[in-house]
């Protein structure tokens, strides 16, 4: 990395018109091996520093890291800490989806970003995070309950108020009605069209605009979605000799020329009735992607409004925190042991070296951490982030951009919109020639 300003990395996306098609080249300078900085630090120091380094999705990163460390060390967080983790993960997902819906998508469609509403979201999110971390870090591996504290599950008034504020912002600024009611009313394409026709929120305008401009199916392509993978399966390429290459450009199966698959909100809820129906019409184009964001935000907002159970697509990963093997000879327990943390099968217990994998559904897709630990010291730490799947040189963005019409005068705008829709998380440059 040449300077501090470059450290966050970026994506360089080049489109070349060639006869009747668009050629796409994606190059990444994202610091995919930066987690190596935690090697030789204590587990407690590393897990405390993790959200400082990865502060945008700090909760998902902290959760995946904690799960991996707990799996490696045979620890489990208390029920109260797990509840706080899940609560924060749901709120972080909401915050990120608000960002897409209030800032990124409207800006890409030249409709004007709603920074004022996003500022209110950020205030509520900061308040919630402050409340749920005030009495201790819920992501400290193996953290236990302290009776009478938040860790015992007693939410403070501040946390409840902040959750209610996030839910109210979803209802007022996105859906124009209670989020649960929106889910009921828009369980079909016809319902979504009807809602967008009579609602004046920015999100409804987004739906109308995609339909009016003929963009609902923009970028549809045949790239498949990443199947549910066990932590055990993921740990194999993450501990292989070429693990650095895998985390930079992952495929599944993890071979050099394996398929580059997608992990996004669309991939997560493609079977939800509204998204599924839209997919039959528009494939994996823009409107099904927008609908997926709306559906996930509505589900999370409903949870936050009622302090209810978190949606299944989040609970599956985060709820498996206690389903850990402590060595390769034990069997994981728990409802979703297949996607929870495990100890790596290559662990060498005789030397005191053990490894664990934590798997979390972050706002943008699957996030995986693998750690190797010896006597409470980190020996190695790898992170596999969703952007590397989605912006793989042969991945869903590359295929979506290649599906664009090279003769369309709006090619650059369409390409920008498609990149935003899949969401790179980092700055990107787009050149068209």
């Amino acid at each position, binding site marked *: *990395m040449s*300077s*501090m*300003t470059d*450290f*966050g*990395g970026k994506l360089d996306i080049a489109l070349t018109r060639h006869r009747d098609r668009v050629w796409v080249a994606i190059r990444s300078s*994202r*610091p*995919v*091996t*930066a*987690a*190596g*900085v935690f090697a030789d630090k204590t587990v407690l120091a590393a897990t405390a*520093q993790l959200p*400082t*380094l*990865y*502060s*945008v*999705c700090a909760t998902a*990163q902290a959760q995946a890291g904690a799960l991996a460390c707990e799996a490696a060390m045979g620890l489990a967080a208390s029920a109260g800490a797990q509840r706080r983790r899940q609560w924060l993960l749901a709120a972080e997902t909401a915050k990120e989806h608000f960002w897409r819906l209030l800032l990124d998508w409207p800006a890409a469609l030249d409709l004007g970003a709603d*920074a*004022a509403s*996003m*500022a209110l979201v*950020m*205030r509520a999110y*900061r308040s919630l995070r402050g409340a749920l971390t005030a009495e201790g870090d819920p992501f400290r591996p193996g953290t236990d309950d302290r009776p009478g504290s938040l860790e015992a599950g007693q939410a403070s008034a501040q946390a409840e108020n902040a959750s209610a504020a996030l839910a109210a912002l979803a209802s007022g600024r996105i859906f124009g009605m209670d989020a649960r009611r929106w889910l009921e009313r828009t369980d079909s394409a016809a319902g979504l069209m009807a809602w967008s026709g009579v609602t004046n929120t920015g999100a409804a305008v987004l739906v109308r605009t995609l339909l009016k401009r003929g963009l609902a199916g923009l970028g549809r392509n045949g790239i498949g979605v990443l199947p549910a993978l066990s932590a055990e399966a993921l740990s194999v390429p993450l501990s292989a000799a070429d693990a*650095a290459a895998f985390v930079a450009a992952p495929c599944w199966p993890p071979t050099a020329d394996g398929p580059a698959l997608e992990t996004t909100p669309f991939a997560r809820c493609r079977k939800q009735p509204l998204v599924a129906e839209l997919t039959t019409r528009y494939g994996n184009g823009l409107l099904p992607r927008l609908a997926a964001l709306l559906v996930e935000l509505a589900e999370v907002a409903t949870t936050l409004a009622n302090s209810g159970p978190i949606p299944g697509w989040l609970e599956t990963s985060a709820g498996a925190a206690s389903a850990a093997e402590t060595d390769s000879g034990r069997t994981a327990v728990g409802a979703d042991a297949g996607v929870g943390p495990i100890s790596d099968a290559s662990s060498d217990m005789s030397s005191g070296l053990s490894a664990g994998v934590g798997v979390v559904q972050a706002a*943008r897709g699957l996030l995986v951490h693998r750690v190797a630990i010896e006597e409470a010291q980190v020996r190695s730490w790898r*992170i596999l*982030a969703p*952007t590397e799947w989605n912006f793989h040189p042969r991945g869903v963005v590359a295929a979506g951009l290649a599906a664009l019409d090279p003769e369309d005068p709006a090619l650059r705008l369409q390409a920008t919109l498609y990149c935003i829709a899949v969401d790179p*998380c*980092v*700055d990107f440059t787009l050149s068209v020639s």
Partner: protein
Amino acid sequence: MCLAIPAQILDLDPATDSATVSLGGVRKSVSVALVEDVAVGDYVLVHVGYALNRISPQEAERTLALIREAGALDAEAAPGA
């Protein structure tokens, strides 16, 4: 990864809700529409053109030190490095 970098506010423009910040010694314009009560001299975390949070000078220094450490590692791991 999704990283936010600490930056110090050098100048504020309330009319546009923007600020000029020093990001690793490089001047850059960012939006401060998402943070409250920031002043010249404050440190903020910057991501894709927005200031996300105000942080203390101590937090900023700790974060910058960690990023420098990680950056050095990543440069070593980069192809051709």
